[in-house]
């Protein structure tokens, strides 16, 4: 079996060491200068992290293969440094049965570029009315542990309560898209504030998120179950989370890269590339989210990667689809905003983008430490490389990339999934790896 030696990497950004990978597993770690290997990756100056894990992506297959497929989404994930992605259930048909979940699992395995983990719908058809077959999805080969109606809020308190209770025996978690539909209906598309007032766009007030999160943390306390808050966008939600965690409530939360950087004022020209749900918030919220990520109130970064066919973004702002790409740029955004500024170090990045999301999602074999015996899911990052994002260069099938033209410091160099290089910018070796 092939032996690959990764030499000179700073492990989690700290001490320099070599990693010997054999049979898809990290065989040795240390000073391995004289070790024989079939391949050699010179990682001098690079940071080695456990492969990144994204708890929240939309891969669009089945149903919208013109926007993304499991294959193109897997490729985008690999180039973003991800070795596992959780594929949301709002496909067509919806992932609300064991069979549908296994189909996605198998398709992901066939692609072999990243681990594709299906998220199961909480309610049948995402209709919010009756529970989907949560237990059968959990018992299936896909071993579904994360359940979400993402795209829709589970707004019925009784359904939410029952779902939280029901998933306890198999250690599941409900990932909630927090949006009270009475306070922010389907037309709501701009943070409610001065910009929405001036632009005449239907407001999406922060309270529509905060009130659901407040309710859900109380339901989590009441049921003793786990709730995860998807794409936290407001400072008020951060306050609720901080309180809930202080009470010992089993709540976790994610923030997207875009909510860590992009702000409401970008909507001024009505460019639908900036239309996303929940909406981009003002700078005060952005700062609160960065602080919450730094102090652990927000557990992880998840992309909410949401590819859309070009024509679905070429409607009026009101009619255009919600969502933006994120897989290929997330690490650079976090590096630029959180690491280069000194608010997080690389060990923190390993936590918020790998080990913690893997743990929340109940995924073994991912997010493990860079130690002998761990699966060889490794992301090498060049912390000093500056990139300028080019939407056209994406491996995603879609181009709704709000980061186009932005320059960021820190970029993925090489991704290794189960001992095989799934992505590298090292063009000298790209052909060799792509076998």
């Amino acid at each position, binding site marked *: 079996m092939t032996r690959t030696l990764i030499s000179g990497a700073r492990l989690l950004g700290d001490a320099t060491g070599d990693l010997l990978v054999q049979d898809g597993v990290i065989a040795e770690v240390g000073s391995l200068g004289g070790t024989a290997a079939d391949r050699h990756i010179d990682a001098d100056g690079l940071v080695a992290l456990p492969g990144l894990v994204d708890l929240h992506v939309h891969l669009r297959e089945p149903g919208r293969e013109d926007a993304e497929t499991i294959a193109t989404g897997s490729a985008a994930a690999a180039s973003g440094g991800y070795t596992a992605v959780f594929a949301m259930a709002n496909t067509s048909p919806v992932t609300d049965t064991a069979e549908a979940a296994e189909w996605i699992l198998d398709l992901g395995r066939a692609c072999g570029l990243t681990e594709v983990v299906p998220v199961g719908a909480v309610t049948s058809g995402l209709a919010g009315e009756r529970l989907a077959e949560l237990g059968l999805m959990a018992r299936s080969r896909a071993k579904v542990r994360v359940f979400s109606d993402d795209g829709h809020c589970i707004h019925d308190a009784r359904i939410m309560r029952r779902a939280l209770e029901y998933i306890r025996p198999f250690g599941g978690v409900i990932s909630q898209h927090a949006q009270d539909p009475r306070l922010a209906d389907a037309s709501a598309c701009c943070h409610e504030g001065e910009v929405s007032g001036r632009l005449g*766009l239907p407001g999406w007030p922060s309270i529509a998120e905060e009130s659901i999160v407040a309710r859900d943390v109380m339901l989590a306390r009441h049921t003793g179950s786990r709730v995860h808050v998807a794409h936290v966008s407001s400072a008020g939600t951060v306050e609720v989370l901080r309180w809930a965690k202080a009470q010992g409530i089993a709540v976790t939360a994610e923030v997207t890269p875009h909510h860590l950087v992009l702000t409401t004022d970008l909507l001024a020209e009505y460019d639908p590339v900036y239309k996303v749900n929940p909406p981009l918030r003002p700078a005060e919220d952005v700062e609160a989210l960065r602080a919450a990520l730094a102090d652990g109130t927000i557990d992880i970064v998840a992309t909410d990667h949401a590819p859309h066919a070009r024509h679905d973004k070429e409607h009026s*702002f009101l009619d255009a689809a919600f969502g933006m790409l994120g897989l290929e740029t997330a690490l650079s955004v976090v590096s630029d905003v959180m690491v280069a500024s000194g608010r997080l170090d690389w060990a923190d990045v390993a936590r918020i983008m790998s080990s913690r999301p893997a743990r929340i999602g109940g995924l073994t074999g991912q997010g493990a430490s860079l130690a002998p015996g761990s699966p060889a899911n490794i992301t090498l990052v060049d912390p000093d490389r500056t990139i300028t994002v080019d939407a056209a260069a994406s491996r995603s099938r879609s181009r709704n990339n709000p980061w186009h033209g932005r320059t960021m410091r820190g970029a993925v160099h090489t991704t290794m999934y189960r001992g095989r290089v799934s992505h590298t910018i090292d063009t000298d070796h790209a052909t060799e790896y792509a076998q």
Partner: protein
Amino acid sequence: MSRHLISSADLSRTDIEGILATAESMHDLQRRDVKKVPTLRGRTIVNFFFEDSTRTRSSFEIAGKWLSADTINLSAKGSSTSKGESLRDTAMTVSAMAVDALVIRHGASGACRQVSQWVRCSVINAGDGMHEHPTQALLDAYTLRTRIGELDGKHVVIVGDLTHSRVFRSNVITLAALGARVTVVAPPTLMPSGIDAWSETDGFETSWDLDTVLAGGDPVDAVMMLRVQRERMSGGYFPTAREYTVGYGLTRDRLDRLVARNADVLVLHPGPMNRGLEIAADAADAPQSVVLEQVSAGVAVRMAVLYHLLAGEDAGSTRPAAPGAA
């Protein structure tokens, strides 16, 4: 002046005054027997209305015809989303017919801004969702100036459903540019979000209490009543029509109080009016009411806008190459 008119903020005070001066000469034309001038002969204007409109569309259509342009009306209510065609495809299709100007009414805020970034012709916003309606603001300014002269220091009060009103959003910009003092009045539920910060930046005042404003320091020179849609009641914006009228309607009594302080006060309404709701019938028909003058000014102002965009000194950029046979 830009080749588009998307927002009232696209126009400087000089631009506005230029358009209003042109509108005056256009208005003179309307009093002749033969109203047509050859200014835009050979030019094509498409009135593309994605949303119903009677007065704005006919006003633009007449304006184009009196300038001798070929005007075509397209109605596409609901078609873009129901047929699945994107706004961009629809706009590019029409633009491909070598039109000179697209006059667009759309139910979605920002649609005109988006279209202007895709097409090569001039785009004129004839009302986009809850965003703006710049020619309405121009015709309101024209009507006011015809009656009360320069607007510097004049006090204009705008009352009604500000949240959903594109007329309000354009008027505060144009009136402020012309030096008017503007106060906007609505119940808190019909105040646009963030208006406290916004009004401070843009230099207008807000109030929840119409009677206090009417009795306040400066006498009111004009009051502009905005249409209030009855369906807003089901959205919880206000309890009943009766309660709205008591709080915010231009009743006979309120008009009498206005006239007592300023005999020359004007009453404006962009139409269509809900008589008995935001405006009492005898206020709508009072001598102070200039509602029909607004309509009449609409044609002259739209002629002036078309003239400035398509035939003015700096309008060359949109002029297509002359055909060889010409």
